[in-house]
């Protein structure tokens, strides 16, 4: 038997244990949820903060990157709410149904809960946890199994979030945007957990934006569980523009049933340390799944995308397409694992990650993994790392386009390979413009 590594507890780990024991009595949920929390904290306590010897965290040594644990954010006061009301500018004016989560707490008075489409229901996670037979009781922690320490920490400390239910056959045309805002000058920690359930044949689009103050080292641990029923269709776009000193850890767990359509796109340009974990279980036949991501990183930013896609049923098609643009001494990590189980014949999976380095000191790490147990499948992966094509740049300049503008055009095109797949046109345009603004704003 291999010896288990039991490292010394770090300051952050000890602080988290104290935070958990102090917060426990007040955290929402009945005895079952409390038991789930306790078990999850044990999972975390056994593993500790992830470090390099944890394979899925190989390139993001959280034990080194997260030196301390911030106190739990208090309930948002009037000031925080007032500040939060102006958040979400990136997708402003697109007319989406906005739900505000301020310092980890769902704020109904800022949120648009009027004229809910037929079949759509929305509640706060805190309320849903407290209800005896709510959706969390059925689904929470049961969508995709994972023993990830950061997710376990989220389960232990989850305070609030959003629970959305879309009834069978209901088509929610108006996208739902969850605006996550951290405010204030004191560094706090938030643990939000959301749950989205789409019953058979339902359809909806979800956006998530995450932002906060630039000069505050706040910590965000957020998770979303999603159940996509048979024949349902869902698109989710997560935009991370956290403040420059923030640590942002996010997990999405999605269970997708027969014949459903699932799409998820990440757009990351903010935060000091950002981790996006995406665990997708394709449980039924004939699913179409599309996963994409764009990271725009500069300075000392570090972003890590971890994808774990489980093809458990036959005849599913999946596409994974990730792009990173890196400047300064930024680091981007892409770990993409596709497992094709023995039953998953006729799987068609293709993964491509590409990084563009704008400086000589930026770094890109790619770790594609294919685990294939079926024999009649098409699976491919590729990754590239390169710099801007100087010949093409000269061609653009020879037509009168200034250097910076030429670079912006080329990088927008590079990122466009992912953004073109984003459904809502307004979001596509906003993200393309955000890319451009990021490029032109670089030093």
């Amino acid at each position, binding site marked *: 038997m291999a010896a288990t590594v039991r490292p010394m507890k770090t300051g952050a780990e000890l602080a988290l244990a104290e935070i958990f024991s102090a917060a426990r009595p007040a955290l929402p949920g009945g005895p079952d949820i409390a038991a789930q929390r306790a078990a999850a904290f044990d999972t975390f306590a056994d593993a500790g903060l992830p470090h390099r010897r944890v394979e899925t965290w190989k390139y993001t040594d959280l034990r080194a990157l997260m030196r301390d644990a911030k106190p739990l954010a208090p309930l948002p006061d009037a000031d925080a709410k007032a500040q939060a009301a102006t958040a979400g500018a990136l997708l402003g004016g697109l007319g989406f149904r906005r739900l505000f989560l301020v310092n980890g707490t769902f704020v109904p008075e800022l949120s648009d809960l009027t004229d809910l489409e037929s079949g759509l229901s929305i509640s706060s996670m805190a309320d849903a946890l407290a209800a005896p037979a709510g959706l969390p009781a059925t689904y929470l922690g049961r969508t995709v199994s994972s023993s990830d320490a950061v997710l376990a920490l989220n389960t232990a400390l989850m305070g609030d979030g959003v629970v959305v239910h879309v009834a069978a056959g209901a088509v929610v045309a108006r996208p739902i945007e969850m605006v996550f805002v951290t405010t204030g000058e004191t560094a706090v920690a938030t643990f939000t957990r959301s749950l989205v359930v789409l019953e058979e044949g339902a359809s909806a689009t979800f956006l998530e934006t995450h932002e906060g103050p630039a000069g505050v080292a706040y910590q965000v641990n957020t998770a979303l569980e999603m159940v996509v029923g048979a024949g349902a269709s869902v698109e989710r776009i997560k935009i991370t523009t956290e403040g420059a000193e923030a640590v942002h850890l996010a997990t999405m767990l999605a269970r997708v049933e027969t014949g459903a359509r699932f799409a998820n796109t990440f757009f990351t340009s903010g935060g000091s340390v950002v981790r996006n974990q995406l665990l997708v279980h394709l449980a039924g036949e004939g699913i179409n799944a599309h996963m994409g991501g764009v990271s725009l990183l500069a300075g000392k930013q570090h972003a890590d995308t971890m994808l774990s896609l489980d093809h458990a049923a036959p005849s599913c098609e999946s596409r994974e397409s990730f792009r990173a643009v890196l400047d300064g001494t930024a680091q981007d990590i892409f770990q993409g694992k596709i497992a094709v189980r023995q039953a998953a014949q006729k799987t068609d999976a293709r993964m491509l990650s590409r990084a563009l380095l704008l400086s000589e000191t930026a770094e890109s790490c790619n770790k594609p993994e294919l685990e294939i147990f079926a024999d009649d499948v098409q699976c491919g992966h590729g990754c590239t790392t390169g710099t801007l094509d*100087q*010949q*093409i740049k*000269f*061609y*653009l*300049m*020879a*037509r*009168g*386009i*200034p*250097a910076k*503008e*030429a670079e912006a*055009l*080329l990088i*927008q*095109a*590079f990122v*466009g*390979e992912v953004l073109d797949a984003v459904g809502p046109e307004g979001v596509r345009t906003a993200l393309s413009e955000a890319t451009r603004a990021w490029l032109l704003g670089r030093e």
Partner: protein
Amino acid sequence: MAPLLEIKDLHAEIAGGRKIINGMNLTINPGEVHAIMGPNGAGKSTLSYVLSGKPGYEITGGEVLFRGVNLLELSPDERAAQGMFLCFQYPLEIPGVSNMAFLHTAVNSQRKKRGEVELTSPELVRKVRELGKTLGIDADMLKRPVNVGFSGGEKKRNETLQMMLLEPYLCVLDEADSGLDIDALKVVSNGVNALRSPERSMLVITHYQRLLDYIVPDVVHVFSAGRIVHSGGKELALELEATGYAQYQNEAA
């Protein structure tokens, strides 16, 4: 009348040391069409790159005045805004950038630099479509990414479209006929000829006399070992076709 372009005792080498342009002199007046002919490796393409400002070449002597301005101090985009246009021998493919967006950005970048009013999208689209029609460039080619999947002829027509749209003072055509069949050559030449005007000059770089049947030059220069070794009228092109470059190469040596 002030010359449009004056190249005075120009010396240039590839970064790293090999000397390519070796004491070149050339004066082009407004409205003139000059042809530069010469054997492979004479430095003809390098000349076009040095004029348009491609990185990787070092100017070791001499000067180039373009519309009275020291051209060598300008970046490639500034040269373009001054009215310099290089028609590429091998136009590059730009995945993900639509032809129309590229043209729009190019036109307005130049106008902005010159302090002119920028064109609106509808104005530009109308203009591009009109010009495109004369070159057999349809709406689909304008929507597609720049030159991606274009045939050799389509790429050259696309270059011609850019030239007509940007209305430069000096068009440098680098082997404009390479990769073209006779029909495409006619379309491209017609486009170039339509641009001939008393204010606009052309510098046609070519191996073969064939192109000069379509774009008839005022002056023909023989270029060898990095400089002009002989000049004459348009009949010189025919003479070269018959005798080859050998005698001038000796002259250069």
